[in-house]
């Protein structure tokens, strides 16, 4: 078989000769097997879910490194040949760009093989891991070593990883659900090849790297998240001690209009840490999709699903219009006290039906929600992709204050825009301490070019309209990075580009990430 390589797809601004020289150097550094240029090696990197053509996010090559020294070597070669390199850790950022590069032709640096759990401290509840470590791997490690610690992860739990999720400021569902808040210590390979350790990591002989975040002087960890100033090769984070008692529960609310009251009910309990975890308030279609319901089971009509059908699904599947998932953690005494407070507050609210684990048994979606809240990996939430089918998924994730009126407004606004474009509101709110991550899966059929175009227009309109109301998303897929960067204003962008010029003058590290690209006029 002839070894055909890609001769037409090149990184931006790089000619074929330079590219081939860089590839030869990558091979010398990493070995033949770690430099992927053949089409059948690169196709799995191009399965995107965004409403744009695959070609816009096709890589010219992918390389895999196994050591920090190799990452430094890759950066050196990229500088020599001005090769833009898009770094992924486990590459499971589904719906935000998956494993594909942000821009056509970028070389992917896939860190999946850097998958060592470097340290877990059971007394201090800390971990230090490499980029390719998955939550499942870490879960197995805790189980095998009988360590009384609990993980927090996003829904693709088993196959995603803590480093990548935290670097993209993802969230989970336990009391440690704000993942970046629990991060402690990073090792970053900078564009000039230097290896920078944040916090206490630069102190010779230090043992506090994973326990004290701030170190001395400026604390820079945050600037490496959702950014392109360095390649994170190690990350420390905190693990929650496994509580003696875990009590998950659900509260079902009958009407879509209940959302404002739900938020007002939850907020004081959350801020006071009576309910300590990242509570979820899931809409009916999110719930239905994750218990194996498909739109085609109810209708084959194109367009948005009618409210009448939504009500029918709610009834058939025994769901609420809103479904609140929360949990109590601690000793039996602590849980009993907090349970009394929660049920008392609900009684005062006068609506909502509580479902306990004993009542729910093994039924979905309660089961997977309880697993997520207790750090047990599962893949149940992938059922979302079967609701409409066709492989299209883009997360629209605006943040807001944890106020009923704000959530009510956002939900109504989102549903109106989605329905106008013939798509469904499939959303949930994740309650932070004082904020709401409003996460909406814009699901559409990528086999249908017209629907794909509509989904793209819908996403753009969601961003525009929400911005006009003073809202912005906290994270976005790679097709809309530049657009979202605009929402945060020109001064922020000038600062970000000044940093980029200082740290990465050749613009080699993930150009375009969060709209930071020296090709921009900032």
């Amino acid at each position, binding site marked *: *078989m002839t070894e055909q390589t890609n001769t037409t797809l090149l990184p931006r601004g790089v000619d074929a000769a330079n590219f081939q020289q860089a590839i030869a150097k990558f091979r010398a550094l990493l070995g033949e097997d770690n430099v992927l240029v053949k089409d059948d090696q690169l196709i*799995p990197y191009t*399965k995107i879910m965004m409403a744009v053509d695959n070609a816009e996010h096709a890589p010219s090559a992918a390389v895999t490194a196994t050591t920090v020294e190799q990452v430094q070597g890759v950066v050196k070669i990229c500088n020599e040949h001005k090769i833009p390199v898009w770094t992924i850790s486990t590459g499971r950022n589904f719906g935000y760009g998956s494993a594909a590069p942000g821009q056509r032709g970028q070389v992917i640096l896939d860190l999946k093989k850097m998958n060592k759990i470097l340290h877990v401290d059971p007394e201090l509840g800390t971990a230090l891991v490499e980029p390719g470590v998955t939550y499942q791997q870490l879960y197995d490690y805790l189980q095998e070593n009988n360590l009384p610690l609990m993980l927090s992860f996003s829904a693709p739990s088993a196959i995603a990883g803590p480093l990548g999720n935290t670097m993209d400021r993802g969230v989970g569902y336990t009391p440690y659900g704000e993942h970046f808040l629990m991060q402690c210590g990073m090792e970053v390979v900078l564009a000039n090849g230097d290896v920078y350790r944040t916090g206490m990591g630069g102190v010779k002989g230090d043992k506090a790297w994973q326990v004290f975040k701030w170190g001395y002087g400026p604390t820079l960890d945050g600037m490496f998240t959702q950014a392109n100033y360095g390649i994170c090769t190690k990350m420390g984070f905190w693990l929650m001690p496994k509580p003696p008692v875990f009590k998950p529960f659900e509260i079902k609310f009958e009407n879509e209009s209940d959302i404002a009251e739900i938020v007002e009910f939850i907020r004081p309990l959350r801020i006071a840490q009576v309910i300590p975890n990242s509570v979820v308030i899931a809409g009916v279609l999110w719930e239905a999709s994750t218990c194996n319901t498909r739109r085609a089971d109810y209708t084959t009509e194109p367009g948005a699903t009618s409210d009448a059908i939504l009500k029918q699904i709610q009834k058939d599947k025994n769901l609420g219009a809103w479904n609140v998932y929360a949990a109590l953690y601690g000793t039996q005494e602590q849980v009993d006290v907090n349970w009394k407070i929660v049920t008392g507050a609900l009684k005062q609210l006068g609506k909502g039906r509580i479902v306990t684990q004993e009542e729910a048994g093994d039924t979905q979606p309660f089961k997977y929600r309880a697993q997520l809240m207790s750090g047990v990996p599962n893949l149940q939430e992938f059922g979302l992709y*079967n609701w409409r089918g066709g*492989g299209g998924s883009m997360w629209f994730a605006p943040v807001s204050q944890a106020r009923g009126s704000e959530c009510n407004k956002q939900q109504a606004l989102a549903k109106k825009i989605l329905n106008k474009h013939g798509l469904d509101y499939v959303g949930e709110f994740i309650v932070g301490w004082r904020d709401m991550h409003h996460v909406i899966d814009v699901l559409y059929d990528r*086999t249908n070019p017209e629907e794909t175009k509509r989904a793209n227009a819908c996403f753009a309109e969601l961003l525009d309209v929400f911005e006009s109301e003073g809202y912005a998303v906290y994270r976005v897929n790679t097709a809309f990075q530049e657009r979202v960067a605009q929402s945060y204003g020109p001064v922020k962008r000038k600062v970000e580009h000044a940093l980029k010029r200082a740290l990465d003058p050749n613009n080699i590290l993930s150009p375009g990430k969060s709209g930071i690209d020296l090709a921009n006029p900032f």
Partner: protein
Amino acid sequence: MNVERRFLLKGMALGGLAGVAMGSSSLAMANTMLGGQARPALPTLALVSGNVAESAFLQGIKASNAAKQVSVQRTDLSLDFILGLEKRLRSGQPQRIIGLVDDASAALIIDLARSTGARVQWLGQHNATANASQHRLLSAEAASGCAPQLGLQLNACGTGFSLSEQRLHGNKAPLQMGAASRNRAGSEQWAATLGYALAVMGTADSGQAPLVASRPSPLTGNFVSFSIEA
């Protein structure tokens, strides 16, 4: 080719058209063209989800010379399934994994192929109704000829379809084919042809996909097809 039907061919190689004129399948021609690349069928796992297990997709696989090398497994979203598949992909045993599955399963399977270093020669998104189907394909050189084969057979059987194929490499414009619906007789032909094409991909098989009769409840909905080689 029926001139009464809307039939578009863009960017299709001259060789492909010649293949049609000679009456031989594009797939057979492609496998012949690949010459030295053709090799005996590897042990193959066919993954199916939901009602694909009762569809013409498996009929297509069964009709191929590779059939005796193929075992079939249903997908689900359990950790057991995914971890089992990962173990299989990392086993070091040369093998192929083909399939027609739902979108949720596909998201997991294709990324598992990436993370284990397997090769993906074919990745298709399909939407099928009772009288029409849409196919968006991404293919590697190793799958050369499969997309035209699918398009030509759909054209021959008379169901409405649209098909576009992108290649990651090369300067060729994407292949685009389509036809309006003429009848419902072959409403599941796409699945049979696809099953056959995926089963024989890369082998010396020069046969034809079976023609399948329509059923009262043909396979409809959204699906993802793939060919993975580990």
